[in-house]
């Protein structure tokens, strides 16, 4: 098996907010560094940072404070977040937004007097979300991308990273193995420091919002390296994903929160408003409550033709709706629905993944030289992520990782040699499906998505989780018996689908394991058999890791390093 | 095997593209025709007879048609050119389509007028 080998100082995996910000900061810290970005799609054109609609949380508004942002984050995360991570997030977001505006050229919406506009976002005690209309992500990623283009970094576009390779001498990381999607050639890039920034992404659910290139590859790689993954049961569902039937990729894509905020109604299959039966705030209840309520209606069989519920806006006046939610109305119209005047089917949809690799505030992991930032990192959000903290997380920590990696490289004479046996093992693993005749990988994925949706989804209990674990095991075995036909590696999307599915199955197993051991309901994790939120003072977070091919799950106590339950930084201030 | 990916390139089928094409073709044809036109007039140096002889030749319907064509070209190019100048120098935008239509219409009207008068 021929393997291209090359060397770089810093290898960045992924070109979302975290990856690109890391590249920029590394280059600023040390312009002579050789920086390589390997990314599954085209530079800056894949991943979810592009897809950010709502905006970016930052305590820049007069009267707001980092303390307040921090308290909202901790409360939203149900006291599970790593407080040092959350604090660094809130504190650094201030500089980061100024950097985005002043140095990189993002332009966020202004008030009529020219000052930065901050909008309200659910779950926060202050209007602190800066945004560019409802297409904030496009502005952020485009500006990052064009700055990265001028850096002269080495972009390995359409290079899928297959595995992280440790050093032969056990001293840390050595680099990453990848495949050039276009040619099918394998390549090992040796590096002094590696950043994992593949952006998590819970795309193993029947309904999901993230971009299609995100399939938990990064977390699966980290798991294989034996790293601790935390909060893996924490999957955030957005209550209103578009439901357009199983045959279209449009299904699952997000219909914005504001529809409910503005007074939109949710109607079940019998045409009744049902939210009042679950929560006095009705449609304006929080994301998790609305998601569970819709899910309950669906379980009770009161569904629309495609198996969801309806969102109805027309009572607000179609013209008004068309004006206020232009983007959403157009998006629905493009796939054949009339949001302004008719009914549109919606369903809760998996949106964000709070779980991830255990890191410190310098983005370091347990393996020297390996850094993790963005949605791949765990601990920042705890049990729930505030809308607007996701892109803040990826750009804040991407930047930090870039600086720390640059500093590390400057003290290192050369990169460590790789453990060749791991390279061999990863190559064999990637080529696994070749030679076996192919069943339809898509069918397996459909089954995975159904399993996860039904048994490890919005509402969980011990029985369902047990069933979920069993079907995931069976699915895993079936996948290993399924092939991708003869070995044709150049732009073979069917092979990549297989690889995607393997990452998804593995991380699904971790999610299910973590969900099994968390026997209380918190934030995004809801156990019907343990509906109460446990004692906050003794809060723990879950950690799963792989030991000798087996998953081990445990609880670690939350350290209240800054504030304890019952206290608040705001009163103190 | 063929490299042709878009047969007939329908992406061009929009008003402003045709406006562009008409403008360009008329410009090129004008540039080709104008030297001859000048040449003809230049005959005047050699005495009225040559010119008259030549002008008599223009009584030929075919030549008349060509003259009409020239007139049309000039009209088309003029109208298209004014449209472009408005667009680029005055930053007219939503007007574009109207201007294109106007240009074509004016050119056609001019040509018809000329035809009517000439024959």
């Amino acid at each position: 098996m021929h393997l291209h080998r090359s060397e770089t100082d810093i290898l960045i995996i992924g070109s979302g907010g975290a990856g690109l910000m890391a590249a920029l900061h590394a280059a600023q810290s040390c312009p002579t560094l050789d920086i390589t970005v390997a990314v599954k799609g085209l530079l800056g054109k894949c991943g979810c940072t592009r897809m950010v609609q709502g905006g970016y949380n930052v305590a820049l508004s007069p009267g707001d404070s980092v303390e307040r942002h921090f308290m909202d984050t901790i409360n939203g995360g149900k006291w599970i977040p790593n407080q040092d991570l959350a604090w660094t997030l809130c504190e650094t977001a201030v500089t980061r937004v100024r950097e985005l505006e002043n140095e990189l050229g993002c332009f966020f919406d202004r008030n009529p007097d020219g000052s930065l506009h901050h909008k309200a976002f659910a779950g926060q005690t202050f209007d602190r979300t800066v945004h560019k209309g409802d297409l904030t992500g496009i502005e952020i990623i485009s500006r990052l991308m064009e700055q990265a283009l001028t850096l002269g970094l080495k972009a390995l576009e359409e290079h899928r990273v297959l595995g992280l390779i440790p050093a032969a001498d056990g001293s840390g990381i050595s680099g990453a193995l990848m495949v050039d999607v276009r040619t099918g050639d394998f390549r090992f890039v040796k590096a002094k420091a590696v950043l994992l920034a593949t952006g998590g992404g819970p795309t193993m659910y029947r309904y999901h919002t993230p971009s299609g290139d995100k399939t938990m590859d990064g977390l699966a790689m980290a798991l294989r390296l034996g790293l601790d993954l935390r909060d893996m049961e924490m999957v955030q569902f957005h209550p209103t994903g578009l439901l357009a039937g199983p045959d279209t990729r449009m299904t699952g894509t997000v219909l914005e929160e504001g529809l409910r905020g503005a007074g939109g109604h949710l109607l079940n299959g019998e045409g009744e408003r049902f939210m009042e039966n679950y929560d006095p705030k009705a449609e304006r209840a929080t994301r998790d409550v609305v998601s569970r309520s819709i899910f309950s209606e669906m379980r009770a069989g009161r569904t629309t033709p495609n198996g969801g519920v309806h969102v109805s806006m027309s009572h607000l006046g179609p013209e008004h709706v068309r004006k206020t939610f232009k983007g959403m109305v157009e998006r629905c119209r493009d796939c054949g629905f009339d949001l302004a005047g008719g009914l549109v089917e919606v369903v809760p949809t998996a949106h964000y993944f709070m779980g991830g690799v255990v890191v410190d505030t310098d983005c370091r992991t347990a393996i020297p030289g390996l850094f993790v930032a963005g949605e791949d990192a765990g601990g920042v959000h705890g049990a729930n992520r505030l809308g607007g903290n996701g892109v803040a997380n990826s750009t804040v920590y991407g930047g930090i990782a870039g600086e720390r990696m640059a500093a590390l490289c400057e003290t290192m004479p050369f990169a460590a040699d790789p453990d060749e046996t791991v390279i061999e093992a990863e190559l064999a693993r990637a080529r696994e499906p070749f030679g076996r005749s192919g069943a339809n990988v898509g069918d397996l994925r459909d089954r995975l998505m159904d399993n996860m949706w039904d048994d490890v989804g919005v509402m969980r209990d011990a029985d369902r989780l047990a069933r979920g674990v069993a079907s995931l095991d069976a699915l895993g075995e079936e996948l290993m018996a399924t092939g991708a036909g003869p070995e044709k590696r150049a732009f073979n999307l069917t092979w990549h689908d297989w690889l995607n599915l393997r990452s998804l199955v593995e991380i699904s197993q971790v999610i299910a394991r973590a969900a099994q051991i968390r026997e209380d309901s918190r934030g995004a994790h809801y156990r019907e058999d343990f509906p109460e939120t446990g004692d906050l003072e003794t809060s723990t977070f879950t950690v799963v890791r792989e030991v000798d091919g087996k998953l081990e799950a445990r609880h670690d106590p939350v350290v209240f390093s800054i504030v304890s339950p019952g206290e608040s930084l705001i009163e103190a201030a | 095997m063929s490299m042709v990916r878009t047969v007939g390139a329908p992406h061009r089928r929009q008003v402003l593209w045709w406006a562009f094409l008409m403008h360009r073709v008329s410009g090129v044809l004008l540039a080709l025709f104008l030297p001859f036109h000048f040449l003809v007039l230049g005959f005047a140096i050699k005495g009225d007879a040559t010119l008259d002889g030549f002008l008599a030749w223009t009584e030929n319907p075919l030549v008349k048609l060509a003259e009409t064509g020239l007139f049309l070209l000039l009209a088309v190019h003029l109208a298209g050119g004014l449209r472009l100048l408005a667009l680029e120098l005055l930053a007219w935008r939503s007007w574009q389509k109207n201007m294109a239509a106007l240009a074509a219409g004016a050119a056609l009207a001019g040509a018809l007028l000329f035809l009517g008068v000439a024959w």
Partner: protein
Amino acid sequence: MNARREAYLYAAQRLTALIMAPLVIGHLITIIIAIQGGLSAEEILSRTSGNIFWAAFYGLFVLAAGIHAALGLRMVAAEWLGFRGPLANWTVAAVGLLLILLGFRAVGAVI
């Protein structure tokens, strides 16, 4: 520098267009009037001979047309014939010059 040259060439093309616009309109109207009753050499010459106004009118037109057409052809040659660079520039300049010379000869003849 390059940018300035292109900007000036662009401006020259648009400027000559602006100059020609009224001239062409004027010319077209004259033709329509002239054509009624058929063209004749006397007619043309009696109208134009020794008339300083028409001399300036057509002189200006010829000058502008030469510059304008040369610049226009430069663009078309580059795009449709792939003919670019110094040789192309000199060629279209020559065409423009020829146009101007022929034009002046014609103007000289009828004035």
